[in-house]
């Protein structure tokens, strides 16, 4: 709200303030542009050189030859994306640091940490499901056992998802404890059935006959 009779001055003061902010901000914008340009140049160079080097290294062929597993994605591209992501994050962090100052940097750090946690959950989930898929395909597991394994994998993924949600800490602790207990008991029951089911079957048969 402007003071009475003094409105124009206040408006002009606000515009002055904005103008001075813009003037102060222009060098930062220029620096940010320079950073972006440098980052783009580095990414271009890195992409070119990485592609050449990895083509020479034949990393995809090498990985397939050693493990016998052909991945649904190219390791060459993955490494290039990782390098690009690194450069982009460095550029972003530098821009935030230059333009926003330490307060925004801290916020950026938090965002990055949270992003890293989410990314790690995604990666672990992918790895978990890929391994699950591999085991099922290799061992020709029967459908009930497959269902059990999928159930366990889902429980583990849920535990990880709970960790990255915005729930309060006590709720998170309670949920994760519950899931952990559930996973533990399920594994225990499964182990007993797996190792002693023949014995139990015989025992039940014996009882039935008696």
């Amino acid at each position, binding site marked *: 709200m402007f003071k009475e009779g003094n409105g124009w001055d206040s408006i002009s003061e606000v515009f002055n303030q904005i103008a001075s902010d813009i003037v102060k901000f222009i060098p930062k914008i220029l620096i940010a542009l320079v950073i972006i340009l440098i980052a783009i140049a580095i990414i271009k160079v*890195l992409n070119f050189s*990485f592609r050449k*080097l*990895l083509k*020479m*290294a*034949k*990393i995809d062929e*090498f990985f397939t030859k050693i493990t016998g597993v052909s991945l649904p994605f190219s390791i060459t591209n993955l*490494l290039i994306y*990782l*390098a690009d992501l*690194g*450069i982009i*994050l*460095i550029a972003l*962090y*530098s821009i935030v*640091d230059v333009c926003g100052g330490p307060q925004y940097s801290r916020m950026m*750090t938090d965002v*990055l940490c949270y992003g890293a946690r989410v990314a790690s959950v995604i990666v672990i989930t992918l790895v978990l499901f890929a391994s699950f898929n591999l085991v099922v395909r290799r061992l020709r597991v029967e459908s009930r056992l497959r269902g059990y394994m999928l159930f366990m994998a889902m429980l583990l993924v849920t535990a990880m998802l709970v960790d990255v949600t915005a729930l309060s800490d006590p709720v998170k602790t309670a949920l994760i404890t519950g899931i952990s207990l559930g996973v533990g008991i399920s594994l225990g029951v499964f182990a007993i059935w797996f190792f002693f089911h023949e014995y139990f079957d015989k025992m039940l048969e014996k009882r039935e006959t008696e």
Partner: protein
Amino acid sequence: MGEEYVRTNGIFIDDRPYIYKFYAITRAKIMYKIGMLTEKILKAFCSDKSNLGRIPHMASRLKWLLVAESLFAGAYIALTRGLFLIFLVAMGHDVRGISFVILLSSLLSVIIGLALYKRPNFLVRKVKQKLSAFHLLERLTWFFIPLTSNLLVISLLYSLCIIFSSFISTFLTFTIYGLLPEEDIKEVTSKRTAAGNVSSIVGFALGTFLLAFLQTGEKFIYIFFLGAAVGILSTISVLLMDLSQLEGAELPSGIKEPEKIFSTSMFFVIFLFAGNLLAIVWTPFLMVKLNGPEFLVASLNLAGTVSSIAASLFWGKRSLKILRTGLILNVLSPILVLTIPIPFYHLGISIYNSFAFTAANFLGLFLFAKYNEWFGAVKSSTLIIVIGNIAQFIAAVLGIILSTNYLVTFLLIIALYVSAVVLAVMTVPEIAIVPEYLARTYSRVLYRSSVFGYRVAVEISKETIFMIFRLIALTIVFSALYLIYRILWALII
């Protein structure tokens, strides 16, 4: 003759008296007959253009000049290269530095030898100019070596000397093999060896005398200058040689009997490798292990050189089968060195070793002289030098690795000598103890299996090199990734 004619309207009229005409006709007839005779001699002695040097008087002159070259070169080498190690020690350089210099120069020699073998065209153009230039430049380099104490500069100058020396050896061997028939090659080789050894004794004596009696710090300058000056005398011998017949010498398009060349080369390289290794290890074994006095080492060299003079003259005219005996006798030398613990007895061993070694060395050289007819002088000469250089280089490397392990080194030398003898008597038809057809078969088997092994080795090496490059590429990529995320981490923290 021109003034005896009168020119009339462009027509030459012979208006001389009859007696002059008779003389002129007779002279022309005689000249024609001489010309015909010369042509017959040429046809008798020469099969192609490159063999014109086989005309007796020309060959004789060339042989004497080659012997003279060796005579002056022996003293020159004794006064320069022979004292080079002492010079390095006097300059305060350690063993590692000295080994580095020798190894570098040996490697350069091998590279040059191989390059000349692969591209022999260099040898057959402007032979005399090139030989003379390299000859002179090598001698001139020795004027600069004593002027500095910087190891790097000395190494470079010495390496330059060795490069020139490699070219000189190749050109001189090419001259001998390219201009002389087999018997003359044998004669020149033995005479050159004898002359070189005689003059190297004189050179070493002079060098020792000067080292002992010159008190100034610049004694090496005087000695090397003297050596280089004597060396220039041998350059004059080269300048007097007529090498025009070597110009454009034919290069064989393919090797007629590659297995024969392979067997001989294998035997020769193994034999020379063992010989060089023995030369490297004998002195420290005698001084350190047997506690022999220092002068004994010098006497050992002297006795060996004297023995090799007699041996050169003795073995020079012998047949290949007799030289084979020398090769077999040579096996005994390292056994005697290893088993006789009394240092003074090693003088006798040195005499024996040099005598037998000369025979075995001549065997290799004369075999190449025999193959010269179809293998060609260019290839023969370059291959001989390459073999010598490779043997020297491997011996230098192994000498450094096995320096103090005398037992292993001597056992290796014995094994190598035995291998050389077995190879020679089983696979080289000219000196084989088995029937010739069997030797040829063995030689062929050895050649083919070696070629196959070589191809496999090349393939494996190629794969290994590619794998190394792949790993390097991956390392670079992961290092770059690490660097990127390390920077990011540093920014976040």
